[in-house]
């Protein structure tokens, strides 16, 4: 019992106080940063906040496309121009029309023309394909269907991932191309296709 008492007597109170003081300053320092530090933190925060809209914009940079296959190639078309997809069951071929017009179909009472874009683009005929599906494209002034072999589904792709076209590789004229993705899906420009006057049949007997 006597030894601790001895130790008690040996306590240097001023030293203790000083240590406490240092600790207090250190603690206070943690909770209250200096003006400069505050500024730095705030600036960082501001920068981070400022960055966010930029990120949101890049999310807008995705486009939603409908993928389909046609003559063993994969294509996609912006879904905003796609009204619907439906199976091709009956087709009435029309005489006196250009070869890219496959014929007309009855889509719930509406007569719709069906186009083979492969023929329209003058792509070489390759093999025999099913062309079982019709993708109905629509804009304010135009509506028609294009045939496809199979529908791959809808997905969103980053605009940044679309490479400019490689016309030599796929053979579709550049005018109708939005680009090619890394997986070599050819993205068609539906807007241009819908607005193209060359697609409109306007012929009269002389």
């Amino acid at each position, binding site marked *: 019992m006597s030894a601790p008492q001895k130790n008690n007597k040996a306590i240097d109170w001023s030293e203790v106080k000083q240590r406490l003081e240092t600790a207090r300053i250190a603690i206070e320092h943690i909770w209250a940063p200096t003006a400069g530090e505050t500024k730095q933190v705030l600036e960082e925060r501001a920068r981070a906040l400022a960055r966010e809209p930029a990120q949101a914009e890049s999310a807008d940079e995705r486009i939603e496309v409908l993928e389909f296959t046609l003559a063993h190639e994969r294509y996609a078309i912006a879904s905003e121009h796609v009204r619907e997809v439906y199976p*091709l069951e*009956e087709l009435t071929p029309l005489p006196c029309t250009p070869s890219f*017009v496959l014929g007309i179909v009855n889509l719930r009472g509406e007569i719709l023309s069906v186009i083979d874009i492969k023929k329209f683009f003058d792509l070489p005929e390759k093999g*025999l394909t099913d062309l079982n599906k019709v993708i109905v494209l629509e804009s304010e002034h135009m509506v028609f269907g294009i045939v496809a072999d199979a529908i791959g589904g809808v997905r969103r792709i980053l605009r940044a991932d679309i490479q400019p076209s490689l016309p030599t590789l796929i053979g579709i004229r550049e005018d109708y191309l939005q680009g090619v993705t890394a997986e070599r899906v050819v993205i068609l420009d539906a807007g241009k296709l819908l607005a193209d006057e060359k697609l*409109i*049949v306007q*012929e009269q007997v002389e």
Partner: protein
Amino acid sequence: MAKQNDAFLKKLLATFRVEADEHLKAMSAGLVKLEKNPAAGRYAEIVESVFREAHSLKGAARAVNIKEIESVCQPLESVLAALKGNQLTVSPPLFDLLYQTVDALGGLLVGDAGTPEPRQVRLEPLIRRLGNAVHGQFAQSGMARPVTLAQHTPTAQLPDAQVETAAPAEAAAPVAAPSPVTSLTSETVRVSTQKLDAVMRQVEELLSPRLASAQRAKELREVTVSFVTWKKQRARIRPTLRLIERYAEKADNGAAGGLHKFQAPEFPAKALPKLLEHLEAEQLFMKALEERLLRLSKFAAHDRHTLAGMSDSLLHDVKEMHLLPFASLLESFPRFIRELARDEGKQVELTVQGSEIEIDRRILEEMKAPLIHLLRNCIDHGIEQPSVRQDRGKPPHGTITVAIAQKDGGKIEILVADDGAGIDAAKVKAAACRLGAVSAEEADKLSAQEAQALIFQSGISTSQIITDVSGRGLGLAIVREKVERLGGTVSLESGALESRDGGGTSFRIVLPLMLATFRGVLVRVGEHCFVIPALSIERAARVNQQDILTVENRATIPLDGQAVALTVLGDVLELPRRKLPHQDKTGKNQEKTPVVVLGVGHQRVAFQVDEILGEQEVLVKTLGRQLARVRNIAGASVLGTGQVVAVLNVPDLLKSAVRQAAPPPAAAETPAGTHEAAEKQAILVVEDSITSRALLKNILESAGYLVTTAVDGMDAYTTLKTGTFDLIVSDVEMPRMNGFDLTAKVRADKRLGELPVVLVTALESREHRERGIDVGANAYIVKSSFDQSNLLEVIRRLI
């Protein structure tokens, strides 16, 4: 977000346009009334109504923030206010100014092209003049024109270039473009709530047949289930049946053997009660089933009856909603006539009769351009200058009458008549000769009436000067084309030409009241079916082969003592010529050829078809926006079977037939010798994709085979049972029964076992190929590397 806003704004603007269009129309109508009887007691009332319309328009424009309209309405209101307050009196220059203002406002509504700044600049003189008008000052009327003309000229000039270079096809646009009031109405239509309610009620009632059909479906399902139960019971009795069968066979053998062996087989006595029990139950079951089916079919017939009645009445009511009075089209005409006449220094009065008669909205819309064109013609060519008229003893002001009358058989007639100079047949002949449409001798032979009818031909005009209004000779051709496309006719009556005063001109247009249905004749050419409007068919006949005679290398047939040119419809439609199928060759139709004689005006041509299938009511639809105008085809129609067929354009067909100097059809019909050797081997094509099916059929047919098609394996197997074939070409992936299963089934069949099978498939893997060979296919062609010579080569090797 921005996108949504844009869409909203767009919608708002569209609504505004419709509203503004109505205001403008009301203003125009008011101004015309005002000009006609300014002294009447209703003067103040009319001014007030026009004023209100202008004010409402201003308010509406402000709401959608179209400043230009607002800026024009402002001074316009001041002028109208001055009129109302009697600080200003009406005068011709004031009317001119007011009309121009309404026009300019109309132009602002339509023209979304061009940035607002230039438009603002263009409007400034008008605004200034309106400002001056309040104080009773008017600028030269001549100065005023550019404001409105500026909007018309670009559209009016464009066609000129086209006319010279391109086909008159595009000329349909020029007539439509400079119409007095631009078409805005077509996008919206007003329907009385009463009519709408009636339709709504009927649509709601459709719920009951829907529920009924659900009920029928449920009941049918139950019947199917009980049938399945019966099948199971039937299967259970099968061993018993076999026992008895075997006994019967043995007993038979014993009797036939004649040997009196007393080895009579033991009768399976234990089986008998079981069998009898089953038969008893079966009889009861069958009776119940019969009753159920009878009840179901009675209900189904009843449902069909109800639904037919409902849909008919609904169709009728909806069609009726499509009807609009002629007044809605004609209301803008008085003003248009007034302006046109004034520009030419003529005085013209328009009388309208029967404007309350209602007609299909779509017909009305289509008729706008032709009617405007006819009216232009009346003013430009028909009505003379006041001085000339007085010399001829006519009143100085000309009269144009537009009379609409209901005719029998769901038709209406529009008469557009003027009391002008009439049409000079000699001039028309001269113009036609110049153009080479007729030779000089031919022209001499033409009667006055026939000569006048020539003006409907493209390029013929009697006008000495080509004005921006008319004179190019295209208009009447377009009028005729439009009217005919609507299933109507147009004819011309011109007064006594010899008398110096001229007897005026009248155009008589007969139109169907409803666009929707007309009678059509269904014909078959090869595997195509077409509808020909019955209105243009003079007759359908069967012609003896020996009656077809060649005159100047063109085939002709005799008809009422006249020779009528004969062409093959398939050739005119540019369809590939097909060799006659077997059945037609052996059939007794061989020497009788069905023909359809089509005629418009004085022209008659007989068209050879493969078969006339009958006449029926058809509903004509447009081909969709992508097929704006297809040669020889007017539209499409959906038959009762759901099949879509093209409706032919008769005027086009006649022109095509004349153009095409084809060899006589009879001579070309004998198949080329090379194909004779093939002696028509029959191939069955099995493919579920319609495009591939058609392609395969085409390839094989042009190679000289007789082709039958089936849509899947099941269909093919049934078809095989009923006919004889030399080979099958089949897809693999198909619904119901695929190509592998079909091949296996064919191989298992005693009669078909040896039939060669060619599989054409998208499945490229080795396993699939092996499976194809396993089931017994003779050849396996992969679609991705398909080409027709390859297929034909394979087929030639097999048969």
